[in-house]
């Protein structure tokens, strides 16, 4: 089942603006990850935040995690046309031999030049 649910489903912004995507989940997690998918391609790992972390930065990416609300957000600052892609959150429960991830349905981000 899909545990992570992204919001909004689609987002369209102008180049240079910030883009914020949200993810909600239902069960306890060890970590939460964000991935990017360009159209027709495989997913690329962007950033991971552990359950004991509240905020993490990587370049123009900022991720927050609120385990009490079971939610996370991904902020992309100073967006570029090349940031146009689908973004997925994925939760890792921290258990199971294969550490299966559960992916959300994604946010389609369009950055207009």
């Amino acid at each position, binding site marked *: 089942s899909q545990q992570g649910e992204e919001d909004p489903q689609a987002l369209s912004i102008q180049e240079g603006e910030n883009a914020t995507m949200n993810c909600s989940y239902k069960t306890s997690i060890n970590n939460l990850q964000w991935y990017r998918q360009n159209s027709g391609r495989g997913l690329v*790992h962007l950033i991971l935040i552990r359950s004991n972390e509240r905020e993490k930065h990587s370049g123009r990416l900022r991720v927050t995690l609120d385990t009490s609300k079971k939610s996370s957000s991904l902020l992309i600052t100073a967006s570029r046309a090349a940031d146009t892609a689908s973004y997925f959150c994925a939760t890792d429960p921290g258990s199971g031999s294969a*550490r299966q991830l559960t992916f959300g349905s994604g946010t389609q981000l369009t950055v207009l030049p």
Partner: protein
Amino acid sequence: SQTIHQWPATLVQPVGSPLSLECTVEGTSNPNLYWYRQAAGRGLQLLFYSVGIGQISSEVPQNLSASRPQDRQFILSSKKLLLSDSGFYLCAWRGTGVYEQYFGPGTRLTVT
């Protein structure tokens, strides 16, 4: 460095025909391997995962099966394809002691 390959990139098959999709990983040993399916505009559905040679776990009952004949080879198969098997199939691997997964380029399957 590690790389992951999937082939074919695209496939058009008639209903009732067999299927074999292959995934191989280079530059690592004993990876966890995963098969996902993605419907158009949707998220990923985990189909199978494997923690070692010959060890396959299925997440959902379906018309598909998986095998891992070698440490870095993962195969997705079907004896008779259904229209509902159409989709984008992604293979991924995860190394020991890390949490993130690394994905292949995917196979676009259209069943007609």
